[in-house]
């Protein structure tokens, strides 16, 4: 995310992944004069992979937009002028910044031009004019108003409109006005844009996979996971729960493999400058296939710390955002290992291609009923075929084998 210090009163095009060099602002989620809290969403940035909603990490006031919608902007270039809210300027270093994005910037892939004194000086005059003559609307209020089809004109000028104000207006408006915004948006002339996006995504996948196949000497190790008992335990767990609280097998498998990746650290990290760099945490890339074709691979950071319920929650939100084409900055963080799951009804197994600079990709096939030998008897068991695609420069088949053993053991005590 953007470096914002006391002398740095601009919001810059963030780096949303190591291979991003430029992006376009395709939608502003704020307006000049808006007061933002840490974490408020500012804009939607289009990258080759996905549209990403970017946020601020300090309280600030939006002053002026510096780029046109759709304009191609290099990473690190200013896109909006802002003023830090009182107190925020006192700390020269942003707190709790998203680590992976920072590291992409810090590793020299991003150069940040210093803001000119002249542009900063003009700031304060712009503020007052931008705010005068209309209601001040918090970003949450604006978003809610959009979602519920509530016109902001109904609020008097000069007062601050909060999200609660909008929700109150929604209740007063009754179900009809509300419903209008709730209808699924009709197919529009965005079809052309969708086609362009799909081909841009295809090209991104093509470049990445080409590089992977050319550079990485892959090996594959496979095994069969008996998930009969895990599925049984998930069923018991889910029996009394509403749909929003239920667990699915992929979440439980991800907990087990994040734990195994943490344990067998040789698979969890990156191949850089002819050597393996281990990752301290497990930042799990999840391959999400899109309904219109193509994939996006958002990341669940710190996956080794999540229990099954937390993993399920993270996956629900992530898949939802990925499919809507609106990822968050944290979702775009560099993964340390990736999982590709074909889904319950999918084919039996997948032997994947590693996403460089990572050194392993875990493939999970669909759930099948197969004959297995249990206690010297053949039984019909539910199984999932697991594969490890490994980078043979970084590790060997024995490492992947150890990973699968750990994964299998971990599954015995889940969820």
């Amino acid at each position, binding site marked *: 995310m953007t470096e914002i210090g006391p002398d740095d009163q601009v919001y810059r095009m963030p780096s949303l992944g190591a291979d991003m060099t430029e992006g376009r602002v395709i939608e502003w989620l704020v307006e000049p004069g808006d007061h933002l809290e840490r974490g408020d969403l500012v804009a939607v940035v289009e990258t080759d992979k996905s549209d990403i909603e970017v946020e601020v990490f300090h309280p600030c006031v939006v002053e002026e937009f510096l780029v046109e919608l759709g304009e191609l902007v290099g990473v690190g270039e200013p896109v909006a002028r802002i003023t830090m809210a009182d107190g925020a300027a006192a700390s020269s270093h942003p707190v709790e910044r998203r680590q992976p994005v920072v590291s992409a910037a810090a590793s020299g892939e991003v150069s940040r031009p210093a803001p000119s004194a002249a542009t900063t000086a003009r700031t304060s005059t712009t503020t007052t004019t931008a705010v005068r003559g209309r209601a001040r609307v918090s970003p949450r209020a604006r978003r809610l108003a959009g979602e*519920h089809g509530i016109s902001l004109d109904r609020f008097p000028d000069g007062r601050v409109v909060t999200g609660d104000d909008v929700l109150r207006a929604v209740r007063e408006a*009754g179900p009809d006005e509300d*419903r209008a*915004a709730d209808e699924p*948006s009709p197919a529009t002339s965005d079809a052309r844009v969708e086609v362009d996006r799909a081909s841009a995504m295809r090209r991104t996948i093509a470049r990445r996979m080409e590089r992977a196949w050319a550079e990485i000497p892959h090996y594959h190790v496979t095994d069969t996971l008996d998930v009969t008992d895990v599925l049984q335990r998930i069923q018991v767990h889910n029996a009394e729960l509403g*749909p929003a609280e239920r667990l699915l097998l992929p979440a439980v498998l991800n907990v087990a493999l994040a734990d195994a990746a943490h344990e067998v650290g040789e698979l969890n990290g990156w191949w850089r400058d002819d050597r393996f760099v281990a990752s301290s945490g497990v930042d799990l890339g999840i391959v999400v296939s899109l309904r219109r074709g193509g994939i996006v691979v958002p990341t669940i950071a710190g996956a080794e710390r999540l229990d099954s319920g937390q993993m399920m929650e993270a996956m629900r939100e992530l898949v939802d955002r990925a499919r809507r084409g609106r990822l968050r900055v944290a979702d775009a963080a560099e993964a340390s290992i990736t999982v590709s799951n074909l889904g319950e009804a999918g084919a039996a197994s997948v032997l994947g291609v590693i996403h460089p600079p990572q050194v392993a990709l875990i493939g999970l096939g669909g759930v099948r009923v197969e004959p297995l030998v249990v206690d010297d008897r053949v039984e019909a068991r539910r199984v999932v075929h697991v594969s490890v695609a490994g980078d043979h420069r970084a590790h060997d088949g024995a490492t992947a084998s150890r990973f699968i053993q750990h994964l299998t053991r971990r599954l015995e005590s889940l969820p």
Partner: protein
Amino acid sequence: MIETPSGPESAEHTTDAAVMSRDDVLDVVREAIVRIAPDADVAGLATDVDYRDEVDLDSMDFLALLTALERRTGVNIPEIDYADIGTLDQLVDYLTARGAAAPATG
């Protein structure tokens, strides 16, 4: 920032909810499917076929559908009944028989 649910789905389901007709329930079901699979021809979807297969809903999508239907009708469909809701007809019958009711607004 906390994700805020949008639309009437977020309304609390209360006891003074209005009972829905079978047609209303079918509309609610179709609308919920469209939200999850915007590209699918849900209006043209036959009511006696396996819609999960037809619309290509994976287990995550299906759970999202059940979550939406619980919000819109107040009916919680447990896993043990999944086999009974394989077609739109079965799903709508299931929801109607269990007193599907629109959440009260206001």
